[in-house]
C-alpha cells in the first residue's frame, strides 16, 4: 500500500477514531495506519480505552432511575439549590441555544415529521460513507433519475442545481420512508463534503424550515405542498442553511 500524498496529522488520527474525519480522507488515514504501526497501535489503544469506559459506565444506563430524579416529583417540589450557581442554566441556555433537538431520540413519541427527519439522517449517515455504491442511479442520468423517482414516489421529484454552493449531483436512490416511498439524492463538493436531500410524503401541508443535529450530521427540514424535505449534511448550520435555501428556492418554482 502506498503512502497518502499528504501526511496524516495527530489531529486527523483523533478525528478518524471519533468519526469526525471527512469521508474522502478516511482511506488515506487507513493506508497511513497500515504503513505506520506505531500510529496504528495508538489508534487501537484509544479504541480499547473507549471500550473500557463503556464497559465500566454503561451499566448506569440500565439502573432504575432513583425516585428523587423523577420529573413529576421535581416539578412539584424543586430541591433547594446547593451549588449557588444560579446563572449556570442561563449560560448553558445561551451556549446551547439555537440548535434543533428532535433527532436525539429524546422525544418519547416523535411526530411523523420527526420520524421522517430521523429516517433521513439515518439514510444520510448510511450512504455518505459509501465509496463505490453511494447511489443507484448516477447524476449523469439526471433526467432518467427524476422521471423514475417521480413515477415511484407520486410527486414531482426534481434534483435541484446546487452548483452555486459548489455541490454536484452524485445521483439518487429510492428508499422506504415512514409513510411510503422516499426519494434520496446525494450531492458532493470538490473536497468530498456530502449533502443528501430526502423527500417523503408528510401530513403537514407546509412547515417552516428547522434545524437539527445528531452524531456529527446536521439537517434542515421543512415541508411544502404535502411533501417533507430533509437536507442533511455536516453540522455547520450556516453552510446547511445556504444549501437548504437554494433547494427551497428551486422546489418552490417547480411546484414541489
Amino acid at each position, binding site marked *: 500500500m502506498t503512502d497518502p500524498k499528504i501526511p496524516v496529522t495527530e489531529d486527523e488520527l483523533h*478525528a478518524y477514531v471519533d468519526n469526525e474525519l471527512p469521508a474522502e480522507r478516511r482511506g488515506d488515514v487507513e493506508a497511513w495506519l497500515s504503513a505506520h504501526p506505531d500510529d496504528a497501535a495508538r489508534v487501537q489503544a484509544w479504541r480499547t480505552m473507549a471500550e*473500557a469506559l463503556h464497559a465500566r459506565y454503561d451499566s448506569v444506563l*440500565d439502573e432504575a432511575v432513583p425516585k428523587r430524579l423523577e420529573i413529576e416529583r421535581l416539578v412539584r417540589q424543586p430541591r433547594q439549590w446547593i451549588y449557588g450557581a444560579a446563572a449556570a442554566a442561563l449560560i448553558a441556555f445561551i451556549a446551547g441555544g439555537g440548535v434543533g433537538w428532535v433527532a436525539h431520540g*429524546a422525544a418519547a413519541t416523535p411526530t411523523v415529521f420527526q420520524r421522517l427527519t430521523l429516517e433521513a439522517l439515518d439514510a444520510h449517515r448510511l450512504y455518505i460513507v459509501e465509496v463505490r455504491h453511494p447511489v443507484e442511479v448516477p447524476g449523469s442520468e439526471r433526467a432518467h433519475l427524476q422521471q423514475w423517482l417521480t413515477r415511484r414516489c407520486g410527486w414531482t421529484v426534481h434534483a435541484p442545481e446546487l452548483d452555486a454552493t459548489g455541490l454536484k449531483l452524485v445521483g439518487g436512490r429510492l428508499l422506504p420512508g415512514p409513510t411510503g416511498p422516499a426519494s434520496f439524492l446525494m450531492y458532493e463538493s470538490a473536497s468530498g463534503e456530502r449533502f443528501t436531500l430526502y423527500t417523503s410524503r408528510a401530513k403537514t401541508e407546509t412547515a417552516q424550515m428547522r434545524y437539527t443535529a445528531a452524531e*456529527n450530521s446536521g439537517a434542515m427540514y421543512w415541508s411544502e405542498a404535502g411533501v417533507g424535505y430533509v437536507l442533511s449534511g455536516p453540522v455547520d448550520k450556516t453552510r446547511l442553511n445556504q444549501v437548504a435555501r437554494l433547494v427551497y428556492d428551486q422546489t418552490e418554482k417547480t411546484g414541489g
Partner: protein
Amino acid sequence: MTAFRQSVEAMIPALRRYARALARDADIADDLVQDTLVRALRSEKLFLGGDVRSWLYTILTNLNKNRRRSLARRPQFMPLLDNNPDASGTEAEGRDITRALSTLVEEQRAVLLLVMLEGLSYREVADIQGVPIGTVMSRLARARAHIKASLEGQRTALRRVK
C-alpha cells in the same frame, strides 16, 4: 407531560452515566443530575427549541466545575484503593480506567467523557465548554495520551509486584 419535559426525562440515564464518570461517586453524581434537572425545568420557558441534549450536558458540566471550585478549599478525601486480588478481570479493568480518569484535569476529563462515552461531536463539546474546536481537540489529545500512559503505568506497576 410536555414534549420538553419528555425530552429532558429521556436524557436522565445518559446524564447519570456522564455524571458518574465525571464525579466518580454515585451520590455526588445523582446530586449533580438532580440539580441539572431542576435548573432545566425552571428554565423551560426560556427554552425556545434548541438542543435539549447539549443544553443538559452544558448545565451538568458547569455545575460540576462550580462544585469542584467550592471543594478546592476543603481537605480532599481520596477513596482508598481496593486491591482485592479476587476481583474479576473486568472489575479490575473498571478500577483501572476510573483511577486513570481521576488523574485528569477537569476540562480534559469532561472532553474525554463527552466525546468517548457520550458520543458528542467536537462542535457540540466546543459549544458546551465555550471554547474553539481546536481547544477541544488539544484537550482530547492530551487526555488520551495521559490515560494511555496512566493505564500502562498501572500495568507495569502490577507486573513488578508479581
